[in-house]
């Protein structure tokens, strides 16, 4: 017990944690150290392993290897409740409280002050009020929690967690739905708690906030630890490089010779295209046989751009043109009709129909495009499925297998096949190589190159900068839901992309003027 109060010892020590889901290695020998009284940012792109790490530490997932020590003692909690009792509390982005109960009831749920088996409402409210006063909050604790803003709900969740004698507080994207003022309230409380000796893990993709609040930073990438640094001595450029790319030296020569594409015709163009509160208006021209990469951090507006271009989201301004003719893109059906295709990032929820066979998944978009009255005969379906299973080397090569039983890489290939079968003019690929093993990864990149040699126009989103640099003819860089820069030809390299992402607002404004 005394150990935990000794400042020389780390409060929470995670050593050599590994975790696999089937063949996917979500975490590989990750270390993480949290000191008492510090605010420690845990960073990484989607799929880096942040959530998995939190869930392993809090006992939601069993771990495959490694140890967790809290205050010098090894802990291995098996449930959320046991974790809480051990002194580790987690507050998720979506507050896990009951909005229909009062603030006081939420604070003391499961441990209400009782007398003769009856809840002492008055006592509970008095204590709730006192507890929240500690956090500088003076609100009516008898009102339902749902009546209050998300920020206050967050503070309530934190107050509950801290009052349950938490020594470690994990905040998973706590600021995602807060406005500037609310963020300040939250930060003030975080600093207060840190002063009391509580160790806080802060997960966020808002780098400004990370620099404002955190003492140290740990970065994960592809399930591995990239490094642990003092925030004050870590330049922003370096941090982004840690999150996105390998060392610069490794990647500079990876770029293939630029193809002749200047003479090619415009396939689709988007002028002043955008949607309020979604993506700032942008200009985008996509030529036949050209790959345009979209680069930027998580939440920078890459997926949003892709969804607008395809028609999955309706733009509220600007004009889209296909082969020079103005078109309306109000739904995915419009996109499909104009020869667009879209492989979304979330394959399982937005891409495959798991229960249906490989064949049915492949013909789905083509059939939807042809309409109800022109069904593909079984023979045609078999023919199409066989062709693409062979062409993309989908394994196992059984068109009748339910697609949910295939590996991630093969599911991705099935989605590609679904769109290729519609003979599209433009294909939008959102993170086509995410969660795919190395072999399939290289294959998909080779495929992207082959496709655009055939005259297809491609818009590709990827967090892997070396990858984007390898296949793109042009790269659009996004930040804060706006297109901030376009790189072409020799200017495309990882360094320039990182510099564009990291540049502060003033520098961008300057560039726009020159």
């Amino acid at each position, binding site marked *: 017990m005394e150990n935990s109060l000794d400042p020389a010892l780390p409060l929470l020590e995670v050593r050599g944690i590994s975790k696999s889901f089937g063949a996917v290695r979500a975490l590989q020998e990750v270390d993480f150290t949290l000191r008492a009284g510090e605010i420690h940012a845990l960073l990484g792109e989607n799929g880096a392993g942040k959530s998995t790490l939190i869930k392993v530490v809090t006992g939601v997932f069993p771990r495959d290897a490694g140890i967790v020590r809290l205050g010098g003692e090894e802990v291995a909690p098996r449930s959320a409740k046991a974790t809480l009792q051990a002194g580790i509390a987690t507050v998720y982005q979506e507050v896990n409280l009951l909005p229909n109960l009062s603030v006081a009831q939420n604070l003391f749920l499961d441990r209400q002050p009782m007398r003769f088996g009856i809840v002492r409402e008055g006592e509970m409210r008095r204590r709730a009020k006192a507890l929240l006063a500690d956090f500088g909050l003076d609100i009516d604790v008898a009102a339902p929690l749902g009546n209050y803003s998300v920020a206050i709900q967050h503070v309530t969740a934190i107050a509950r967690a801290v009052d349950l004698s938490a020594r470690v507080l994990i905040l998973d994207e706590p600021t995602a739905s807060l406005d500037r003022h609310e963020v300040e309230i939250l930060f003030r409380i975080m600093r207060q708690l840190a002063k009391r000796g509580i160790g806080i893990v802060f997960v966020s993709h808002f780098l400004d906030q990370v620099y404002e609040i955190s003492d140290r930073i740990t970065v994960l990438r592809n399930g591995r630890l990239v490094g642990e640094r003092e925030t004050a001595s870590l330049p922003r450029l370096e941090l982004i490089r840690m999150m996105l790319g390998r060392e610069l030296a490794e990647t500079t020569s990876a770029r293939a010779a630029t193809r002749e594409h200047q003479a090619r015709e415009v396939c689709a163009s988007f002028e002043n295209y955008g949607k309020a509160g979604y993506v700032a208006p942008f200009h985008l021209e996509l030529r036949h046989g050209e790959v345009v990469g979209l680069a930027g951090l998580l939440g920078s507006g890459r997926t949003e751009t892709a969804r607008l271009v395809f028609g999955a989201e309706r733009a509220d301004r600007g004009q889209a043109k296909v082969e020079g003719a103005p078109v309306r893109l109000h739904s*995915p059906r419009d996109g499909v009709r104009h020869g667009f295709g*879209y492989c979304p990032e979330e394959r399982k929820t*937005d*891409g495959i129909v798991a229960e*249906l066979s490989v064949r049915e998944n492949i013909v*789905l*978009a083509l059939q*939807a495009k042809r309409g*109800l009255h022109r*069904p593909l005969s079984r023979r045609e379906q078999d023919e199409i499925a066989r062709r693409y299973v062979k062409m993309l080397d989908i394994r196992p090569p059984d068109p009748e297998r339910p697609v949910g039983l295939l590996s991630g890489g093969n599911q991705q290939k099935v989605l590609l096949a679904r769109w290729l079968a519609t003979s599209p003019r433009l294909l939008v690929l959102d993170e086509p190589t995410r969660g795919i093993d190395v072999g399939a990864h290289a294959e998909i990149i080779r495929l992207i190159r082959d496709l655009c040699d055939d005259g297809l126009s491609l818009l590709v989103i990827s967090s892997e900068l070396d990858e984007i640099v390898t296949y793109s003819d042009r790269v659009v860089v996004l930040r804060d839901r706006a297109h901030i820069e376009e790189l072409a030809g020799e200017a495309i390299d990882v360094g320039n992309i990182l510099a564009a992402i990291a540049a502060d607002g003033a520098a961008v404004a300057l560039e726009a003027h020159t």
Partner: protein
Amino acid sequence: MTALLPRRGLAQILALIVILAVDRVVSPQFFDLRLQDGRLFGSLIDVLNRGTPVALLSLGMVLVIATRGIDLSVGAVMAICGAIAASLADSHGLPVVLAAALGAGLLCGLWNGFLVAVLGMQPIVATLILMVAGRGIAQLITEGRIVTFSSPDLVWLGNGSVLGLPVPVVIALGMLILTGAVVRGSALGLLIEATGGNARASELAGVGTRAMILSVYVWCGVCAALAGVIAAADIMGADANNAGLWLELDAILAVVIGGTSLFGGRFSLVLAVLGALIIQTMNTGILLSGYPPEFNLLVKAVVVLAVLLLQSPKFSGLAGIAARLRRTKA
């Protein structure tokens, strides 16, 4: 692949055979058929005839459930359409009567489909509205009375025979073939299964998921209307309080026994109808056995449990392990 195909439907066929065998034990003349006045009589024909309303309902219901929906209003829609048919039967010709009743069923389906597909209401709540209101509408049409009629055309629909088979059975068979032809002959089947399997992904693949959902509720309404007309024709009258009462539950049961998951996706028309026949075979068997009809409900529950267990992958997994253990011991 060849091993998979007969597996589908095996549980249902097995269940039907077992129940038929039990019925044979309970009532020795169960399989007897005789031809009288050019018409077949016997318990088996009776099962088919009595099973028709639920079979028709399950044809619509299975499509709705395949889109991950449910339609609780079909019993009430039966009452509405039966009431309309009965009210018009003695003053209008059969084509007018049928058009009015089926048109009403179509409108009911359109209403449900509008609530679910356009307004995005949860299917169970959306169709609950018509389930409650529909019986009221039916009572308004019959003005609270049991409306009887004697129009020979409509009576024939419930009691006549074609090629030795009762007309309702022929109609149900025709609807099964028609629905199968429309659904599997066009791309509708695939697109419905995709919509039910993953609506978001289907939408992004360009499938008009709203149109799919709307159309299955419309078809469900039409099937319910036909069931309602036949039920009215059978008793030569419309009883707004009792026509089709609780049959929505039997229809859902038939679909589930037929192996279509309430989570949507893959569906089978034939197996849903087979499910309806299984339910009716049980009902008839218990009636013939002379046991009090209260047993019906219990026996039904046990049989449903058995069929569902046979279909459950976890259960067959357990059974497989048990079999292997026995083999290793031997």
